[in-house]
């Protein structure tokens, strides 16, 4: 799309962070207590200005419905957002997200969740869209056009919970100890400025995708222009938004595998490519030529989850920590080994993935 006026004039959040993820390959349910204790162990990687979790498998009874989590500054914003939702969707259930009062969490927004399916009689202006584009369009409508309202989770049988605070306090606020999930990710944030906006915390989500990210993407300037060419507007000024939209573009729209998407984010070096056998060399040469503007350059460790699994990835020269561990059917990924040991000391295997080498875990069946 044509870049909006003054698209170049943006200010990006910069932050250091801690990340944690755990997956049970056979969809065994992991209590919320585990990721909470892990994140609490990495308390010092954040500064109380952002914490959050994503959990998969938490809404089994409504697993076929889009679970929208909304945060609204006031009742009026919520009412407006609800009108938009009803315009696009059939609402099966709406309720406040259960919370408890926590001393350290100041002025939380109103948090509400909706379980939705697409209307049989779709509004005329979006009738032609594919299902996922339709849902994304509705999310963008609320996030860009309804002041004070923000959809911070929109997948099926999954949910993100996040806000301004240390992750253990956010977990307390959202009563995450009462949830069980087969994939958890967690995030602890250390922003260098204080936007103090709940929507800016991680995980960042789009449909089923959730991302937690530690790093600063130095290629952000070109990544966001590349995304704009492909009709994604980066408005949140976070690196993570770029990761989310690129995943959506590469995997959902261009049909690349997770492995290939990871190689777009952190491609092999040209001298490695030169040493590859012909078929592989052609693949990676073409990948770098075509998707160069999507390369994520700069230090990062990201964990990405969706309804099929979890993967972790470092930048090409591993400038941010990421450690992976295995225990039976469970795989842990974390900024620090201590956070894994805190919840599972007897590990079968612990390793540091190499720079740019993705660790991809698929859920079985």
């Amino acid at each position, binding site marked *: *799309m*044509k*870049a909006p006026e*003054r*698209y*170049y*004039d*943006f*200010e*990006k959040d*910069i*932050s*250091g962070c801690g990340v944690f993820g755990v997956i049970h390959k056979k969809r065994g349910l992991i209590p919320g207590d585990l990721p909470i204790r892990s994140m609490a162990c990495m308390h010092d990687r954040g500064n109380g200005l952002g914490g959050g979790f994503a959990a998969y498998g938490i809404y089994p009874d409504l697993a076929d419905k889009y679970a929208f989590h909304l945060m609204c500054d006031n009742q009026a914003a919520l009412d407006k957002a609800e009108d938009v939702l009803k315009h696009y969707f059939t609402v099966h259930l709406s309720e406040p997200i259960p919370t408890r009062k926590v001393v350290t969490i100041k002025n939380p927004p109103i948090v509400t969740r909706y379980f939705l399916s697409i209307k049989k009689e779709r509004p005329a202006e979006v009738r032609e869209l594919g299902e996922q584009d339709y849902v994304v369009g509705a999310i963008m409508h609320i996030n860009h056009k309804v002041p004070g309202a923000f959809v911070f989770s929109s997948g099926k049988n999954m949910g993100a919970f996040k806000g301004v605070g240390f992750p253990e306090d956010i977990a307390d606020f959202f009563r995450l100890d009462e949830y069980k999930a087969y994939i958890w990710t967690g995030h602890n944030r250390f922003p*260098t400025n204080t936007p103090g906006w709940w929507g800016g915390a991680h995980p960042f989500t789009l449909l089923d995708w959730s991302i937690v990210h530690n*790093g*600063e993407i*130095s*290629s*952000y*300037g*070109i990544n966001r*222009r*590349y995304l*704009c*060419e*492909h009709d994604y507007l980066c408005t949140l000024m976070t690196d993570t938004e770029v990761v989310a939209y690129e995943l959506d573009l590469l995997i959902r*729209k*261009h*049909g*690349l*595998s997770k492995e*290939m998407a990871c190689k777009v984010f952190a491609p092999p*070096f*040209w*001298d490695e490519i030169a040493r590859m056998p012909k*078929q*592989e060399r*052609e*693949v990676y040469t*073409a*990948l*770098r*030529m*075509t*998707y*160069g*503007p999507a*390369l994520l*350059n*700069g*230090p990062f460790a990201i964990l990405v989850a969706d309804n099929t699994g979890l993967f972790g990835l470092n930048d*090409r*020269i591993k*400038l941010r920590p990421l450690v992976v561990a295995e225990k039976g059917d469970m795989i842990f990924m974390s900024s620090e080994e201590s956070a894994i040991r805190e919840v599972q000391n007897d590990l079968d295997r612990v390793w540091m993935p190499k720079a740019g080498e993705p660790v991809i875990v698929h859920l079985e069946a």
Partner: protein
Amino acid sequence: MLFQPINRNYHDFSIVRDKDLCINCKVCVRQCSYEAHYWDEARQRVMADSSKCVGCHRCEALCPTSAILIQKKHSDFRENALWRPQFLKYIYKQADSGGVLLTGMGSPVNIPIYWDRLLLDASQVTNPSIDPLREPMELKTFLGAKPQKLEFTKGKDGNPKLKTKLAPQLELNYPLMFSAMSFGSINFNLHIAMARAATELGICYNTGEGGLHKSLYKYGKNTIVQVASGRFGVHRDFLNAGAAIEIKIGQGAKPGIGGHLPGEKINAMVSQTRMVPLGSDAISPAPHHDIYSIEDLGQLIFALKEASEYRVPVSVKIAAVHNVAAIASGIARAGADIVAIDGVRGGTGAAPGMIRDNVGIPIELALAAVDQRLRDEGIRNRVSIVAAGGIRCSADLVKAIALGADACYIATSVLIAVGCTLCAKCYTGKCPWGIATNDARLAKRQNPEVAAQKMINLVHAWGHEVEEMLGGMGLNSIESLRGNRDKLRAVGLSETEMEILGVKHAGR
């Protein structure tokens, strides 16, 4: 001296000779192709006629006793903000000659240089800068049309296999090429030097519109062959000799006009290569007479692709003019793989000074506008952008890439590397440095081996500096800088200029 023409004494330089140091060895006399130095039989010593001096500094550089100093002439006209001396001199000359004022090299006039108003970023604390001496740093660049997306199939071994067919590409080890300078405008020694340097460096040089001498065909992998309005030296073998074909529509130093290689420069070798008669003027028309609009350009692009069996990318070079963004978009849609844009400060072997100094727009603005337009239209991947015209140093190159260029063309810098002092008299064919001349006595001042090594050194040096700047920004691959205008900040530019460049002001 009333019998002298009015401009006789209004020359640009004074030759100052230190009598104590001068040993009357006559090196200066032999070196000066403009005959500014001469042997005075009566006085039995070397004398000088400053009015003939072009300020090339050849004599100064070669004087064994450092006896010569070339200075600006001190006699100043009365100060006048409107009627600056250059305009008086133009008028005196034209009142004498009745002709168009010719000049060479890029424009020296004070057109804003945006490179100087753009500053680069560097990493501090939140992301580490990368040391290119310890970590890989990648400058490899591919020019040509890229697909919107890739498709893969599973190979026999279960690994992905590329299904998408790629357009032909030009592979470069540096985001840099030697720009078009025709054989004829510069001599054969420099053409061999460029060919050898480009081959050694893994980049390309451009033949310009003077054809390609048969003996240089072996450097084809690193050669871009140019087709311009005069079609000089264009034939089937020529089109298939290079790694890319470039259609030259315009040149930054002289947008809208053709070219003229005077007959004096056309010796046997030039005549054979250009396929023009010995000693006759080679005149390139202003337009291509088979391109009167965009659809005609499309036909020529595909005619050349057919002639080269779609093996090489086709580039279209235009001068940066007012509607450059729309024109570039049209060129992309007409099927070009590369669009090269030459800014108002681009060099030339000969151009009317009025055109050079007044027609066209700065490359920085043109480049920014073109890159943004192609992105807005969703066709940026279909064409690579090469920026040219006044790239003076590696920082200019880095800034051009951050604005959106895939690569830059350099030519003036290359000539300076082999000794050019920008005296701007290329059109006389008497270049004392042996560059813009086909006079065998002068041309032999350029040793191809030495010249090639100077060019190689220059690109190596720039490469190292680019790597340092990239690493400083926390990037380890040039594609992450390409179009990454967030790495640029403006100092002292207006809102409009910043909007066109797509950069914020420093401090924001």
